[in-house]
């Protein structure tokens, strides 16, 4: 096969420079042709003739390169002539040069300092806006919930059970595994410290208190926020993108009643059950670790457990779960409904849903601690 790539040859003929272009001037050779064209540097007053008769094929990129190259050579003291082009090549070059209008590639960025200040202000306003509209959303959901409770047929039990399966049953393996491992880690770490005081047996007190009161519910909530909060935001967000939410409104269906309520109610039912599982699994992990590393047999473990904690300790953990569930589901649905524009927005809102719901869960947990302390629990 003969070499068909685009080529440039320059020959001085008399007092002028002749540049012969040949081969295929196509986008595939554009990189090397661009460099070759830039290397042409005839004396300032030497006329240039560009001979196109050897051109084999020409595409728009090639035509643009020729136009660009000849314009770069042209100057008040130097004439540049194109000659010998086939009719269709001449047309293409003329068309390309006639059409070209420079354009911006990106929106102008502006001054960095001004942008910084503007962003600070924007973010401050966004926080206020979000707080206001999230509060309004909580109100709207509450009103819709009360209305649905007056007409129980409007509660969508099918949807609720579907979400219970997705957010509850499907989360069981991961929640169980994580809590089991946390139980093991808790015992392992505290055993190391407490053995130094000869107080190994208090490992069980430590484990039971921290898991039942705080760790079980907090860990489960964080896992569920990552699993289900994000799923709610992404599901509702992509429905919003595809105008499904608008379609519901247009058909006289209430998106809050159809999409938001079932998710919130199902999560509020399911999260306490998940927390219970997490408690059991963490204690199981702890018991196994006690047996292995501290030689505390399971019957001794149970005995100690019953004397260490009472039922209210267990309930304190469980009672927080529905509240956390409400926060997670509300945030996920709220962020989903805020999606607008592009697929990027779905991603941003999903991220925000997870971060915000974890944040809110931890804030709520702190408030609960204060309240329980006041109540003397």
């Amino acid at each position, binding site marked *: 096969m003969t070499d068909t790539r685009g080529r440039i040859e320059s020959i001085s003929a008399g007092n002028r420079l002749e540049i012969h272009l040949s081969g295929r001037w196509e986008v595939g050779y554009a990189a090397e042709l661009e460099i070759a064209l830039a290397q042409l540097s005839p004396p300032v007053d030497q006329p240039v003739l560009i001979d196109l008769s050897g051109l084999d094929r020409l595409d728009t990129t090639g035509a643009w390169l020729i136009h660009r190259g000849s314009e770069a050579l042209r100057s008040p003291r130097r004439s540049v002539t194109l000659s010998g082009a086939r009719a269709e090549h001449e047309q293409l070059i003329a068309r390309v040069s006639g059409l070209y*209008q420079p*354009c911006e590639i990106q929106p102008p960025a502006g001054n960095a300092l001004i942008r910084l200040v503007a962003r600070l202000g924007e973010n401050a306003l966004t926080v206020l806006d979000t707080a206001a509209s999230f509060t309004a959303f909580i109100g709207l959901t509450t009103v819709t919930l009360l209305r649905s409770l007056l007409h129980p047929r409007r509660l969508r039990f099918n949807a609720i059970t579907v979400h219970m399966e997705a957010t509850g049953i499907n989360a069981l393996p991961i929640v169980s595994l994580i809590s089991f491992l946390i139980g093991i880690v808790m015992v392992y770490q505290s055993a190391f410290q407490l053995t130094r005081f000869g107080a190994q047996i208090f490992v069980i007190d430590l484990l039971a208190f921290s898991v039942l009161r705080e760790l079980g519910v907090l860990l489960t909530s964080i896992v569920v926020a990552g699993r289900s909060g994000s799923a709610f935001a992404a599901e509702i967000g992509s429905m919003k993108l595809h105008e499904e939410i608008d379609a519901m409104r247009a058909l006289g269906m209430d998106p809050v009643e159809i999409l938001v309520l079932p998710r919130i109610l199902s999560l509020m039912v399911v999260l306490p059950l998940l927390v219970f599982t997490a408690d059991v699994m963490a204690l199981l992990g702890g018991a196994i670790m006690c047996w292995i590393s501290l030689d505390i047999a399971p019957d001794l473990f149970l005995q100690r457990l019953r004397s260490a904690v009472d039922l209210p300790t267990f309930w304190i953990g469980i009672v927080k779960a529905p509240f956390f569930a409400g926060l997670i589901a509300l945030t996920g649905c709220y962020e989903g409904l805020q999606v607008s524009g592009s697929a990027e927005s779905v991603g941003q809102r999903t991220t925000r849903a997870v971060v915000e719901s974890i944040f809110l869960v931890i804030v709520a947990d702190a408030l609960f601690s204060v309240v329980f302390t006041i109540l003397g629990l």
Partner: protein
Amino acid sequence: MSGPIIRIRGLCNAFGDQIVHQDLDLDVDEGEVLGVVGGSGTGKSVLLRSIIGLNTPAAGHIEVFGQELTGLRGDTRRRLERRWGVLFQDGALFSALTVAQNIEAPLKEHLSLSRSLMDEIAALKITMVGLGPEAGSKFPSELSGGMRKRAGLARALAMDPEIVFLDEPTAGLDPIGAAAFDELIGSLQSQMGLTVFMVTHDLDSLTAICDRIAVLAEKRVLAIGTMADMLQQDHPWIREYFHGPRARAAGVGAGTNGI
């Protein structure tokens, strides 16, 4: 190159139990505009996706530029893919990039051009498809449907392809916009010597710019030929399609076969 630019023999496609194509043969000649029509679910888009390699056929041979596509991997495949451009329905622009950056994306991927040359090529393609220079720095979400299609076409043309595949290019455009888009495709085709493979339902496009029409039905190419050939066909679906009320409204066959 002699012979057809795309050559399909014995193509079979199936999804589960549902057979979409069976022993489908099709030739596309260099430099022609081929319109592919067919009822919903006859696998027009699947055919297009099979040719450009987004769908692996169950059996059959697809040759593009005289090279067998099935089983082609790696560099050879990429070199071939550079020689065609695809306009998806609704543009399929990358939403995180501006229009100009969308056009530069394939250039950046395949070539090592200077920044300024790339910007100039992007600007050139933007005006070639009839967008104003102000469109370059806009994001896809800021564009109307018609502008998105034009931007998608500009990206398809970025690498100066020899074949362009268009998936329903005029769907969702108003009649004026659709006619302008037809004209744009026609003029680009004649200037750049493109081969155009176009899936369409638009009878106006079929009459205005298609050299030949292929009808997909009964899992194969039922008929292929010019508009005049189509009007002679006796198959009930083809008669219905080209002689129906919409076809009459579009002026198909006016003067040749008035019913």
